[in-house]
């Protein structure tokens, strides 16, 4: 029933970022995908609608983005790995139910193929404007995991990683792609599927075990209809799920626990990629599509003898605070490159020593990719060459 080999065999394939995302999801075990059409995320849905039935999975086009994420949460509690995809405006509509998934500790994956905004904005052009929304889009206090791919192959691998983290920590995981990566075509090497690590959620072993929520070490997750008489609610609740909206002690306990289950395991969750760090005094720090230009610029700089290093954030949230502050506090200057008005830039400034110069560099024109030569020119100015 779940034979993924019917969809793809190991080998090299030319594919689009959005297709790589859908394929990664199916390989990770995704068997429920709900969607409402939006540019530039549609190819994920098209791939899913063709291929999910082949592995016994379900594709459903819902009436809007609100119901898409809602049905994903329902399917997850019915026992399936589930995903939805969207872009900026749809992501905004999903925020309330993303909060519900956090509160009920529901594993699921949300792909945001970012476009220019606010509002309808420019549907087919890339920007990185949803970094804060991914972290703080829903109301109230919570912690979430957000990953940013920078290539088509990366999208494939990070989608699998997103499911693994989501299942492991019972938390929604957001993939923050953009129109550039989503629509780009590149080579992806599909390895032997048995070599790919797949994580499945922890399930309760015996029927009398009923502490299903609020464990710092992640409580086992039962499925609906398996005899546990579950009470699942987005309202404040205790470890058994029983609702209490009167006692502040319940709020306190809940908020701390959903934070702690992420922060206690932060070293396992966060990932970054670095190059040429050993002798660098200047760093280019970026993520997502921008990181490709940044790496190119670093290589150009090295060619002319400039000691420039490269840092790419793979995990945006929780912000890799410890790793980043360790790296950046050993250099003199940092340039943060983003295709926005400086969202991660603020985080980098927050964790850097006061004597370190931190500069922000958006592309020449927002919504376009940073030209490596433009980065070089600014780098030269910045280091006074």
């Amino acid at each position: 029933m779940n034979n993924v080999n019917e969809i793809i065999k190991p080998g090299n394939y030319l594919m689009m970022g959005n297709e790589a995302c859908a394929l990664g999801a199916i390989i990770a075990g995704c068997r429920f995908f709900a969607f409402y059409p939006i540019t530039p995320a549609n190819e994920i849905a098209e791939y899913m609608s063709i291929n999910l039935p082949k592995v016994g999975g379900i594709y459903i086009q819902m009436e809007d983005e609100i119901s898409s994420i809602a049905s994903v949460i329902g399917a997850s509690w019915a026992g399936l790995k589930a995903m939805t995809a969207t872009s900026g405006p749809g992501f905004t509509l999903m925020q309330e139910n993303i909060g519900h998934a956090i509160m009920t500790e529901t594993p699921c994956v949300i792909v945001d193929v970012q476009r220019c905004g606010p509002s309808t904005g420019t549907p087919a052009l890339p920007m990185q404007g949803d970094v804060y929304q991914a972290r703080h889009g829903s109301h109230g206090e919570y912690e979430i995991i957000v990953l940013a791919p920078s290539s088509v192959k990366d999208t494939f691998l990070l989608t699998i990683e997103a499911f693994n983290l989501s299942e492991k920590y019972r938390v929604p995981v957001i993939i923050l792609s953009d129109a550039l990566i989503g629509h780009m075509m590149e080579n992806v090497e599909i390895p032997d599927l048995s070599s790919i690590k797949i994580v499945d959620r922890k399930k309760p072993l015996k029927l009398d075990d009923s502490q299903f929520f609020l464990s710092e070490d992640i409580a086992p997750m039962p499925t609906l209809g398996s005899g546990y008489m579950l009470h699942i609610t987005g309202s404040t609740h205790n470890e058994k799920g029983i609702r209490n909206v009167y006692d502040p002690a319940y709020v306190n306990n809940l908020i701390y626990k959903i934070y702690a289950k992420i922060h206690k395991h932060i070293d396992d969750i966060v990932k970054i990629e670095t190059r040429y760090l050993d002798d660098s005094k200047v760093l280019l720090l970026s993520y997502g599509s921008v990181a490709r230009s940044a790496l190119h610029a670093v290589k150009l700089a090295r060619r002319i003898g400039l000691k420039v290093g490269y840092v790419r954030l793979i995990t945006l949230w929780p912000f890799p605070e410890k790793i980043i502050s360790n790296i950046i506090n050993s250099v003199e200057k940092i340039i943060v490159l983003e295709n926005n008005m400086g969202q991660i830039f603020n985080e980098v400034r927050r964790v850097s020593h006061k004597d370190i110069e931190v500069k922000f560099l958006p592309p020449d024109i927002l919504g376009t990719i940073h030209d490596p030569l433009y980065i070089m020119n600014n780098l030269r100015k910045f280091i006074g060459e």
Partner: protein
Amino acid sequence: MYEHPLAKYFRKGVRQPFCSGCGNGIIAQCIIRAIDELKIDIRKIVFVCGIGCSGWISTFLNVDTLHTTHGRPLAFATGVKLGNPELKVIVLTGDGDGAAIGGNHLIHAARRNIEILTILVNNRIYGMTGGQVAPTTPHSMKTTTTPYGNIEYPFDLCKLVEAAGASYVARWTTFHVKQLISSIKKGLLKEGFSFIEVVSQCPIQYGKYIDVREPAKLLLMLKDLSINKDKAKTINEKELKEKIIIGEFVNKEVIGFSKAYEQLIIKVRGKIE
């Protein structure tokens, strides 16, 4: 000591949260009685409920309950049903939850004909938030937010859901418990989208505005206001305006969405092999 025959369906140590005289207690009992009479395994039923007083109907029952966001229980339930088609899914929603904020999901669940039984409790007002106007509040009625009288007109939810394509549609009041239980039994066995509207009394908020606070009187009012759908055809439109038309409006056999999807999977996989 004598234990109530339905006591096994209640969650120990959890109190029912409703105001005295609320219709939700009657509706909870009707649902439980229907399940008990059909001898369906309660462990294979999932209750998905929205926000509002009606969303609490299953919280004191010892059942699988997914308490969702305002207006969205049908969308969550769609995922539950497709995730495991062997489960019976009951959505509990109110007139604000299901017909205002969740109106879009209601018509699309009916159109899709997904195998979900929806019980919509219509007390014709926003009870939990203090008595604001609802999409089902009668014309010209005063509420907290229509101090000069409601200038809008109420929804006929059964007509709406019928037009959208549901397989089973019925309306009763909390006075008509026998009919309601029978309808719930039919809805539970139906293959397709089933919708039962229950017009219910709210002695606190609605009662405040019509100046009738006694639950028994409110129930008798519901009885007097009700008219069977067949009899309704014989009286003129003006007289009918004040009435609650009750009865079974739709009962047809159309393949449900999850069943149709299973067939699609078999078809697609057949081509591969």
